[in-house]
């Protein structure tokens, strides 16, 4: 600020603020300092502003939890192939086996990092057209041990092609869906209570990720090169299904079908 403009006037409130913040140039700062030195009211205002600034700086509150938790070493069973299971035979599958979830798969950075690795590993495998076996799928769900929803996405022409239980304690269930136009979607269920419940969209290299939590289970949805609008509809549908643990209503199935009809094939 140019002090010459205000030479004939006492500093105003805005200028006093800038003075306290050290934002005035040398000439203006000197003029304000002189005015403050000769005026008790101005001096009290400057002192009050300085106290306020100092108190604001000290007013920070601790966060309610880790803001950036350390990423734990990624553990893989190495037996993913042995858990390939059968596609769901129409309708959603919900399993209500309860057990305490002592372990957690981490918070958002952890969950997304693990999801990225599993998704990339699955993409590196040749596409499978046959569905996994139903018996092994049920065994995996039982071992996962918490109520989890693996929705039927056949309305949007996505079919389960891959199921794997991952981790030393089987704390991550990875379900891969194949589309008919090159789309491959990963849905991961994690025994993890730390993710926020609300649906969150995160951009990632190659595509989008949606994260949310339903009760004791956190979910991550990943796809590369999918039309964002279609993926939004899919994520919303799955989120609702995971909260209700019942088959999707007719309007949701219609929306899924329409989202595919109005979208481009997956690219990238």
């Amino acid at each position, binding site marked *: *600020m140019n002090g010459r403009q205000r030479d004939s006037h006492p500093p105003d*409130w*805005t200028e*006093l*603020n*800038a003075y306290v*913040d050290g*934002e005035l140039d040398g000439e203006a700062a000197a003029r304000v300092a002189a005015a403050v030195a000769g005026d008790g009211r101005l001096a*009290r*205002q400057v002192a*009050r*502003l300085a*106290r*306020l*600034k100092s*108190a*604001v*700086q*000290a*007013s*920070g*509150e601790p*966060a*309610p*939890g880790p*803001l*950036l938790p*350390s*990423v734990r070493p990624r553990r893989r069973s190495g037996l993913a192939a042995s858990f390939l299971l059968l596609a769901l035979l129409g309708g959603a599958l919900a399993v209500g086996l309860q057990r305490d979830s002592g372990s957690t798969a981490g*918070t*958002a*950075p952890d969950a*997304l990092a693990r999801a990225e690795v599993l998704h990339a590993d699955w993409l590196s495998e040749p596409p499978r057209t046959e569905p996994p076996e139903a018996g092994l799928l049920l065994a995996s769900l039982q071992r996962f041990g918490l109520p989890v929803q693996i929705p039927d996405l056949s309305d949007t022409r996505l079919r389960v092609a891959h199921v794997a239980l991952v981790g030393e304690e089987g704390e991550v269930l990875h379900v891969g869906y194949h589309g008919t136009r090159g789309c491959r979607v990963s849905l991961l269920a994690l025994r993890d209570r730390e993710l*926020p419940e*609300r649906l*969150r969209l*995160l*951009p*990632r*290299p190659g595509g989008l990720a949606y994260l949310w939590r339903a009760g004791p289970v956190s979910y991550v949805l990943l796809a590369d090169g999918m039309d964002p609008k279609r993926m939004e509809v899919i994520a919303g549908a799955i989120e609702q299904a995971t909260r209700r643990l019942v088959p999707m209503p007719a309007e949701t199935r219609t929306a899924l079908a329409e989202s595919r009809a109005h979208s481009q094939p997956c690219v990238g």
Partner: protein
Amino acid sequence: MATAPRQRIEAYLERLYGYAISLAGDREQARDLVQDCALRALGASRTPADESAYRAWLFRILRNAFVDGLRRQRRSIEQQAPEEEVVAVAEACPGDGGLIDKLTVRRGLAALSPAHREIIALIDLAGFSYAEAAVLLDVAPGTVMSRLSRARAALLNAIEEDNVVPLRPREGRSAR
């Protein structure tokens, strides 16, 4: 040797959280915002090498995440700070009364509009200069200066009001 991405961002987490509180006014939502910001930053293919540019970049990511959320609710930060109210506060030059400490400041900040909380957080908590804050907010430096002075006036007024203890009503009177 370059600092690892996680170590680099950790140095700013507390200030990001303070800024997020100023925007969201809610601790859980603020934590979500910081986590979103961290994820986006860690997932970025390129990050600014210069430290002050990196800091501004982080805060911009967080702000964009918040603004995106508001857009989904068809709201904006500015929408919550009516200009007439701001002017009225600024004209009433705050007096000398009122205890200023971190508790009264926290309560006072909570009573402000998000736009006022934001500018105070950027300058006082995050340590941005007026010019840096102007770039972040995409406004002129003069706007930062005036908005900040109004915000502090509003904060001082809120603190003074907070310090006024209402008298107890006299006992023994029947209210009919």
